Structure formats: structure tokens, C-alpha cells
């Protein structure tokens, strides 16, 4: 865990450094005597945790956190208990340590920061990339926007594909393979070598075909299990 300390008092910075040296998982990479210098540093460097003093001349720790766009975790290190309530109003504040800081309390705060970072990383990894809502097709030298959610069927027709939406059909010079790459897997499925369907638009399924809008579309035997996976059964 890479961290920095911001405190106008050298003794306080040396104490934090000494405390950090006693915990293997922490790497104190930089120290700052004022918050302005730290802002410049944070614009160019990725940091996991900041030990931050509140009461500093000209620019306080509370002023500083208001400038952060993508804040790392922060542990306040201060002699002022009166700012605790305000400090905990920010989601990225992990702890509030009163000086002089003793090692057991410091260690507890660091572990808390590690746990929060671990949970945050897990959440970030599980987050699905944002769905694209639309794409453009070239028809008669015009670029036309098509809303993905309106498409219910795409059919291969030789060198062309027919994109069917609820309002209009678009015949585009392309292949099913090309358009398949642009479509989200969670919504579209190639059920046959000539058809891609929007699974949310299915009305019913019978044997080896699906009814979608007013079209009956064949489903290849090999694609049937995959299609069933997309459906939500009672």
C-alpha cells in the first residue's frame, strides 16, 4: 500500500514515518509539509492512502480533501478532536487519529484502510463495463444512429444484413460476424447462422424456433442451450 504524509510539523512526519516502518504492508513514498505540494504530486502519482493533518497554516486538511477528484483513502492525524464529525462525512475517510499517535491505534487504522481497499478492488473487478447504447451504420452515404435497445432482429442477406427495429428496418452492407462484435452478449445472441436476436424481445419459444415481434426465427440445435441460459424461468 503506497502512502504519503502531509503535516506542517516535521516531528509529526517523522513519527508517521517511524510508525510506517513497523508495518510491512505500508510503503511511505513521500512526505509533504503543506497540502499544495501534495496536490501537485497526486496529479501525477497513484497513491492508496494519505496520513493527513487537519490544522495547517493557509490550507487545512479539510480544505485539501475538497480539492480531490479521485480521492485515495485518508487517515486524519490531528490534535483536534472537534473536526471528527465533519471528517467522517466524507466516504474516503478511514480513521481519525489523535496525536500523539500510539502504535496499536495506528496499526488498527492501517488495517482498516487495507480492508476497505480490498473490498473496493473486489467491487471494481466485478463491475461490468458500461453498455453501449447505440452505434452508427452507413446507408447511402449517410451515417444513421441505431439504438441497440430498439433492435429485435438482425438477419443475414447475402453481402448485406437487415437490422430490424421496432420502427424501421435498415439494410446495411456488412456481415453478421462484424455486427456481432459490436453487440453486448448479455442482450444479443446468434441463434442461427443467418440470425441474431435480441433475447429481451422474445415473445415465445417453440421447439426449434422463437417468435420475436412478428417473425418466427429458426434456432440451431447447437444454440438452444445458450439461448435457454439467457431466459429467466419461474
Amino acid at each position, binding site marked *: 500500500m503506497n502512502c504519503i504524509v502531509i503535516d506542517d510539523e516535521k*516531528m509529526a512526519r517523522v513519527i508517521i514515518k517511524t510508525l510506517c516502518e513497523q508495518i510491512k504492508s505500508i510503503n511511505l513514498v513521500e512526505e509533504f509539509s503543506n497540502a499544495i505540494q501534495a496536490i501537485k504530486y497526486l496529479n501525477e502519482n497513484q497513491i492508496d492512502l494519505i496520513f493527513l493533518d487537519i490544522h495547517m497554516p493557509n490550507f487545512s486538511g479539510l480544505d485539501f480533501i475538497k480539492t480531490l477528484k479521485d480521492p485515495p483513502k485518508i487517515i486524519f492525524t490531528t490534535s483536534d478532536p472537534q473536526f471528527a464529525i465533519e471528517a467522517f462525512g466524507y466516504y474516503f475517510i478511514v480513521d481519525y487519529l489523535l*496525536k500523539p499517535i500510539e502504535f496499536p491505534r495506528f496499526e488498527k487504522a492501517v488495517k482498516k484502510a487495507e480492508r476497505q481497499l480490498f473490498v473496493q478492488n473486489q467491487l471494481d473487478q466485478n463491475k461490468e463495463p458500461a453498455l453501449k447504447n447505440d452505434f452508427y451504420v452507413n446507408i447511402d452515404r449517410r451515417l444513421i444512429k441505431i439504438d441497440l435497445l430498439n433492435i429485435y432482429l438482425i438477419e443475414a442477406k447475402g453481402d448485406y444484413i437487415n437490422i430490424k427495429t421496432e420502427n424501421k428496418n435498415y439494410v446495411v452492407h456488412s456481415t453478421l460476424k462484424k455486427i456481432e462484435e459490436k453487440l453486448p452478449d448479455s442482450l444479443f445472441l446468434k441463434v442461427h447462422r443467418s440470425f441474431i436476436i435480441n433475447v429481451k424481445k422474445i415473445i415465445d419459444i417453440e421447439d426449434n424456433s422463437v417468435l420475436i415481434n412478428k417473425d418466427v426465427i429458426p434456432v440451431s440445435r447447437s444454440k438452444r442451450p445458450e439461448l435457454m441460459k439467457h431466459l429467466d424461468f419461474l
Partner: protein
Amino acid sequence: MEQPNLNYINQLARGDDSIRKTLLNVIKTEFPQDIKDYYESVEIKDFKKIEENVHRIKHKFGILGLDKSYDKANEFESHLRDKQFNLKEQQNFNKILITISEYLQTI
């Protein structure tokens, strides 16, 4: 009057003499400068600056185990924040500064 001690510094150093020396060197260097800044702010009656200097200095009271003095410094600082300058509080604060300065010469 309570006397300064090195319990906290020894606790931080965990028996490592080089860490202990580093911590003592920093406090011995920084404290005289803190006092100088404090008296200069008193001289020009800049209450904001006095408050800031008291705030910085009181942390060292805590480091040197001066718990009661720390509480008194807190009150002095709080009154300064409210723009109330209490002469008795200031005299007490000054006495602690002298005690610490004398103590730092002995270590």
C-alpha cells in the same frame, strides 16, 4: 509541576537507538524554532499566528508526556481561536516552554 519524559519516544523507537536519536534530534531542532515563532507572534499580537504556534507546540507537550500541560495548552488555544487572550494562560504556557527547553538541554 509535571516534568517531561521520553516514554512515548522510547515506545516508538522499540529499543532501536538510531530511531530514538532521530526522534530526539528532530524535537531538539524543531522545538527552539517553534518557540521563536511563538514569541514573535506574541510580540506582534497576531492572535491567529499565536493560535497556530500554540497548536504546533502542544503536540510536543503530548510527545514529552506532559498530559496536564497539553490540556491547558488546548484551553489556551481554544480561547485564542475565540479571540480571547488570557494572560494567566499565556504565563502558564510560557513556563512549560521554559521547562521543556531546560529538559531538552539535558538529553
